[in-house]
């Protein structure tokens, strides 16, 4: 081998080593950016399936069917063009499950960078406003944005879930303090059922239905709403392990679809695509039912990372 060639070979080796060295960090930012892109542009299979099923059920040539057809076309087009499914790319909610000893501060920094990059490319809209001045120049980074929730688990793996939750549907979320006398709703599952159905009727025409409800019974006003969002991380076709809640989830979905509100509030058979209910302990003095509404543009995805922070598996 000539000296020149040897030198060249050495260079290549060096370069390889360098790539490897920067990998963990670099890989994490790339994985996060891909997670954001996919979440914003591709609706997960479990959601698509129920939307397609709903489309078949609506009366032919009705405005409900028409709305769902356009929604279906929009889902396909967004994926094809790798562009946001909805222009409101929403609150950016990360849920990170990690092993003991995980560096949350470092993750947060990398995460901010990925959000910034995704905003520049246009996977995310500039959607974060200073609440006092009304200024929107922070490229989605600011107090509480993105919203990152960490959970330590016993496993060695890192799982990152992302939800993009639009403003229209967030605005129709509701929290009831039970007993709720207006509806004669007491502190039991029958009372819970009443207030949930009430919230569905009140949300009509807003929040781009058909949607899915994430619900928490109990907790305080803060933890209740967070748990209601975490319920939306469950796969749409899973079964609640608690029999009484499993029954209630099905009852709510079936009953809601008898209300005739329909897609976009146009009337029709699909008002709700699903309902997920969780429970937290509460104080004897309080009994909250916290309801988060997710629109049809149900953008949530997740990744399981390998030890070098590349994606090992997509979670939905």
């Amino acid at each position, binding site marked *: 081998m000539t000296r020149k060639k040897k030198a060249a070979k050495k260079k290549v080796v060096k370069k390889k080593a360098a790539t490897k060295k920067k990998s963990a960090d670099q890989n994490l930012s790339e994985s996060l950016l891909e997670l954001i892109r996919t979440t914003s542009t591709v609706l997960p299979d479990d959601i698509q399936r129920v939307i397609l099923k709903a489309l078949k059920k609506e009366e032919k040539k009705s405005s409900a069917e028409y709305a769902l057809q356009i929604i279906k076309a929009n889902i396909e087009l967004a994926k094809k063009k790798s562009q*946001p499914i909805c222009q*409101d790319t929403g609150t950016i909610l990360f849920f990170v499950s990690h092993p003991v000893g995980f560096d949350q501060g470092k993750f947060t920094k990398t995460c901010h960078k990925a959000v910034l990059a995704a905003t520049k490319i246009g996977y995310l809209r500039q959607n974060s406003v200073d609440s006092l001045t009304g200024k929107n120049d922070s490229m989605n980074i600011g107090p509480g944005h993105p919203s990152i929730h960490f959970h330590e688990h016993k496993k060695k793996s890192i799982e990152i879930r992302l939800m993009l939750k639009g403003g229209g549907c967030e605005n129709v979320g509701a929290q009831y303090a039970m007993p709720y006398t207006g509806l004669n709703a007491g502190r039991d599952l029958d009372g819970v059922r009443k207030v949930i159905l*009430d919230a569905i009727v009140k949300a009509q025409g807003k929040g781009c239905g058909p949607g899915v409800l994430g619900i928490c019974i109990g907790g305080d006003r803060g933890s209740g709403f967070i748990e209601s969002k975490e319920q939306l991380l469950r796969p749409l076709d899973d079964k609640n392990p608690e029999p009484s809640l499993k029954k209630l989830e099905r009852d709510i979905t079936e009953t809601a679809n008898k*209300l005739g509100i329909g897609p*976009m509030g*146009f009337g029709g058979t699909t008002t709700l695509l699903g309902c997920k209910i969780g429970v937290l302990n509460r104080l004897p003095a309080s009994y909250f039912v916290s309801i988060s509404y997710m629109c049809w543009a149900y953008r949530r995805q997740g990744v399981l990372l390998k030890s070098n922070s590349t994606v090992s598996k997509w979670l939905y």
Partner: protein
Amino acid sequence: MKKIDYPFKREQIRELKVGDMVLLSGTLLTGRDAVHKRLHEGVKPPVSLENQIIYHCGPVVIEDAKNKKYEVKAAGPTTSIREEPYQWEVMRDYGILGVIGKGGMGAKTLKGCQEYGCVYFHAIGGAAQVLAERIKSVKNVYWRDLGSPEAIWELEVEDFPVVVTMDSHGGSLHDEVQSSSEAKLKELL
């Protein structure tokens, strides 16, 4: 499915009824909160609104300033109810034929539709990509000082899909569905 092409005419609008599915082709003018507020304050519109349709939308537009070219990246409807205090006035004073938005509007607007012969078209909320694709070009932009999403964008659309949810005969799909679902809820509770 009905097709309505520009120039839009009052007679066509009066024929429309709640539940009609319509494809609009031609010119639409965007206008949301800041535009309505300014009109309400008595500022004359920079372009005639006579026989026009106003779209409640804050589009995402990419601008090639040098070639004066615009590309609409996303253009879904925004929530209309925020214009409820002003919309009927715009119908009365400027001769518009209707508005496009989402979520429907209230009693004042419904009365305006009846008195001045206008309709409310509901676009499909969240369908940013499908709707952006039906926008063929940007013909002009007015009141840029309001900021890009709030400005008046003159859009050329083709087969823009909407549903009539409030008509000029006093019909409102929103009121209908609201009262029928409330009655149903009472039964089911």
